[in-house]
């Protein structure tokens, strides 16, 4: 890309020119972002075909294309995420197409799977953030591509006979080849340790400058509260809690640095790694037992969540990984829902593909995670002119997609109509969830307007950030629990149906 840039303005590509910004440079860089996002557009067109071209399916497409997170991060913050997510969606679509073929061994099916794997490997080399979902890919490809797949789970005896060494080698070689092509030059110059150090900044601390909306945000928040309790009230002496004085100033400043906790035990990188793996394993097992696309995409979502929630030094932008994969999952379910749309009739149980149809619970989880995640992104855009933009984009997205998805939910024949009599798009939401959605408004009004008016710009600057991320974290964790509950219950239900 920098090769093209040299044509426009040779000064752009000089490495020492760090804060170089002219209007021409900005235009050039922004244009490259917009052009590279065409990859996403193309991928979504393919997805539309692969998932069944229903009119309402377009909502999901547009929800992805005009995703406020992507819009904000790419076009305002400046990154090439659209391009990368485009590749990811391509890869997922390949997997979907592969699994929609019959389970007979066809070369196209394996070809698709191989391509999916290769695309994903390339993606990993673009941005290592996709390591978050690599475990599910690994499990899925290993099972679906490298083993004979007759549709049922394999008994222990036949594991060896089902193994397809040729496929295994093909996949392995191509993945290694991609890594070699990307990392080769650095290996040759002996810079690998430095590269690894840059890519995996374990030294940087548990949380990013603004806390990403994950477990650790809640954990840090709990710690803050404990500090206040211990120092201001006699509770500390009562429980005999020691206060680490050095930590007092550390987290409040919100610097990119090591995080220290005042009261609660310190978390190390090993802890987060173990926790992440533990959270991922259940879904991986489920995929490995039966590699359908439904399970695969579900596990991708859950791995992304696990890494986001429990990972070390997670950036807020990683929430996009959860929401994008989640919308692909939702698109898949909309495609599977019989007669979704205006004339959604009775809920048909005889589903040919075995995919689970869209349920209100999925929509609730998706909407809450998206809302929370995007609000969690807001602190990235802190200048005042940007505030209305981020608010409006998110609000428009939430209303359009929320009410669009609401129409996608197939209507149950004998549902308690009295309860759902209201036509609001939030009719499936429980009281707490509604409170959460509407609660965003006062919280954000405080964060964006009231706080500065009351305290000025400098005092307690971390308080609004903390409120935003804690509020968002609650939503993300809740959505994650809801989604995993759906995931595991639905896969169980499908299994039961099969055995009957």
């Amino acid at each position, binding site marked *: 890309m920098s090769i093209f840039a040299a044509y426009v303005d040779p000064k752009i590509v000089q490495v020492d020119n760090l804060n170089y910004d002219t209007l021409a440079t900005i*235009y050039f860089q922004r244009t490259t972002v917009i052009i590279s996002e065409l990859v996403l557009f193309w991928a979504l067109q393919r997805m539309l075909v692969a998932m069944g071209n229903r*009119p309402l399916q377009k909502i999901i497409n547009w929800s992805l294309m005009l995703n406020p997170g992507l819009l904000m991060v790419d076009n305002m913050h400046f990154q090439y995420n659209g391009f990368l997510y485009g590749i990811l969606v391509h890869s997922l679509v390949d997997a979907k197409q592969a699994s929609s073929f019959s389970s007979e061994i066809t070369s196209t099916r394996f070809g698709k799977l191989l391509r999916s794997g290769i695309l994903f490997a390339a993606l990993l080399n673009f941005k290592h953030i996709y390591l978050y979902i690599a475990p599910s890919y690994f499990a899925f490809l290993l099972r679906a591509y490298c083993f004979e797949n007759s549709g049922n789970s394999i008994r222990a005896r036949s594991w060896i006979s089902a193994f397809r060494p040729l496929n295994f080698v093909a996949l392995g070689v191509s993945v290694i080849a991609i890594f070699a092509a990307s990392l080769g030059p650095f290996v040759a110059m002996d810079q690998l340790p430095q590269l690894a150090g840059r890519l995996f900044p374990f030294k940087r601390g548990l949380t990013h400058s603004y806390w990403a909306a994950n477990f650790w945000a809640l954990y840090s928040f709990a710690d803050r509260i404990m500090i206040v309790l211990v120092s201001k009230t006699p509770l500390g002496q009562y429980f005999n809690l020691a206060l680490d004085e050095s930590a007092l100033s550390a987290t409040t400043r919100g610097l990119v640095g090591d995080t220290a906790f005042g009261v609660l035990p310190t978390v190390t990188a090993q802890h987060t790694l173990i926790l992440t793996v533990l959270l991922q394993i259940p879904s991986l097992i489920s995929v490995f037992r039966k590699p359908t696309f439904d399970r695969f995409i579900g596990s991708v979502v859950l791995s992304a969540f696990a890494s986001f929630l429990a990972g070390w030094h997670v950036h807020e932008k990683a929430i996009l990984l959860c929401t994008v994969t989640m919308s692909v999952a939702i698109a898949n379910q909309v495609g599977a829902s019989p007669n979704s749309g*205006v004339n959604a009739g009775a809920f048909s149980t005889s589903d040919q593909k075995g995919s689970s149809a869209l349920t209100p619970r999925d929509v609730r989880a998706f909407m809450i995670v998206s809302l929370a995640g995007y609000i969690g992104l807001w602190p990235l855009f802190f*200048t*005042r*002119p940007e505030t*209305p*933009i981020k608010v*409006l*984009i998110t*609000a*428009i997205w939430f*209303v*359009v997609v929320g*009410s*669009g998805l609401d*129409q996608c939910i197939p209507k149950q024949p004998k549902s308690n109509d009295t309860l759902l009599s209201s*036509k609001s798009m939030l009719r499936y939401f429980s009281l707490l969830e509604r409170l959460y959605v509407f609660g965003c408004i006062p919280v954000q009004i405080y964060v964006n307007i009231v706080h500065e008016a009351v305290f000025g710009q400098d005092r307690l600057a971390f308080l609004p950030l903390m409120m935003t991320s804690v509020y968002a974290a609650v939503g993300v964790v809740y959505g994650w629990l809801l989604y995993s509950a759906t995931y595991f219950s639905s896969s169980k239900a499908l299994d039961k149906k099969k055995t009957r």
Partner: protein
Amino acid sequence: MAPTTLRANKASKSKANTAGAGASSSSPSPHRTTTTTTTSFTTTTTHSSTSPATTPEAPKLKNLAVYRYATWLEENQLKKTAVWIAVAAAVLVRWTVGLGPYSGQGVSPRFGDYEAQRHWMELTIHRPIREWYSDKSKWWDLDYPPLTAYVSWICGFLGAKINPEWFAWETSRGYESTDAKLYMRSTVLVFELLIYISSIVVFTQRWFAHKPWTRQHTALLLILLQPGVILIDSGHFQYNTVMLGLVVWAVNFFLGDQDVLGSVAFCLALGFKQMALYFSPAVFAYLLGKSFRQGFFGCIWKLIKLGVAVILTLGLLFSPWMESKEEILQVVQRIFPVFRGLYQDKVANIWCAVNIVIKLRERFAIQDLIRFSTLATLLSFLPSLVHLIAKPTKRGLIYGLINSSLSFFLLSFQVHEKSILLPALPITLLILDEPALAALFNTLATFSMFPLLRQEELTMQYYVLLGFWVWITTGTFNNVSTLLKFLSALNLLVIVSMHLGEMFVAPPARYPDLYAVLNSLWSAAGFVLYWAYFNYRQFTLVNTPKMGFRVTKSKTHKLA
């Protein structure tokens, strides 16, 4: 492009269009009515339970992306939220444009319109009201009518509460900061939201009262996305939408037969910007014609009511300066600064075009020019005026507004490029009645303002918004005559080639303003054609009992 080819184009265009105008209004209509009657017949017989979306005119718009979006909204029962989504989207677009530079940003000695507006806020909060128009500080004189001054006072008052530095007396001249810009931009947006956007929402509800909701919403979206208004108000920095919004409110009241309220709203528009005078012949003719139809006493009573309303409104607005003759004269002189000359910069009207051949400004005295241009303007809106008095219909009112404002723009004294927004307003209101023509007009009008926008480095915003406008309105050109298709393609070709030329070929040293002149010539030619066409249209309109229906003679005849 050489001027000779351009003139040749113009000639062919004008010749072709006069023939085509007749063809497009008379010949396709019988054909259209026959097809529509059959389709409506079949729909009623086969799917008797379907929604009223399949009305006669509906298929015409199917290739319009906005229309499909509106249909989708209707299918999903999103009618209630849709308006909010549209408004939010409109605000979003305006705010994003507002991130760009404004008129005179960082241009040191005098700055631009932004500084003028800021200075008026400073002036109104620091000087007593009677000195507003006689202030001699040799900075930007207040040259808009009192309502602008009052609005400036409100903005200045609130702004000074936030940060007194922005509007400090004398020390704040040329003050620039991101926060001040943010505040100023948000005042524009708030007033636009309260007056203009709300008026458009109500207008679409009233104008499409007997039409399917999808059409109403399509019109709303298209009108809100009209590029010219966005670029001038949110980009260049002005409060035109307050005036335009008040005019639309006046139209809204006229549509609801609330004539007194309508004339009050129109007087407020006049009291905000004197440019609203462009519309006054049509409003006057409409109200007069309507009064004549009330019988003798009804007529007198109505005229008294309207007169009292107008005098009271204007009187209240000007009351602080009413005490002596000198004072009111001073206000009037400020509002009508005739000394500024026949036109400013390069404006796409007739005088500027004639000026290329005959140097009017050097050859004639300014008094003669004023007299001559006023007479010409009068003559050019007279036919439409007379017609409107004779047939004061609601649809005729919109066409009358178009014709009188176009006449003023083309022929009156001291016209600015931005004034094209005035004719553009009623034309845009007809976006679904004359879809292709309205779309084309807005493209041309936005193009005609390009030299101004380029000065302010708003080119990126211009390209994006104009490109978007052309893209969303391409669907309107599907059912029109080949001639119109050709003209629109030609127009696009000329616009693109002029922009490319400007980017890559430097103008010769003798004519540094070559591109600006070509731009104004091309646009002026287009506007003259539009003037002729809309006059023709106004005379072929037919009075219909239900507004918002049937335009041409043959149509009503067949359907009745």
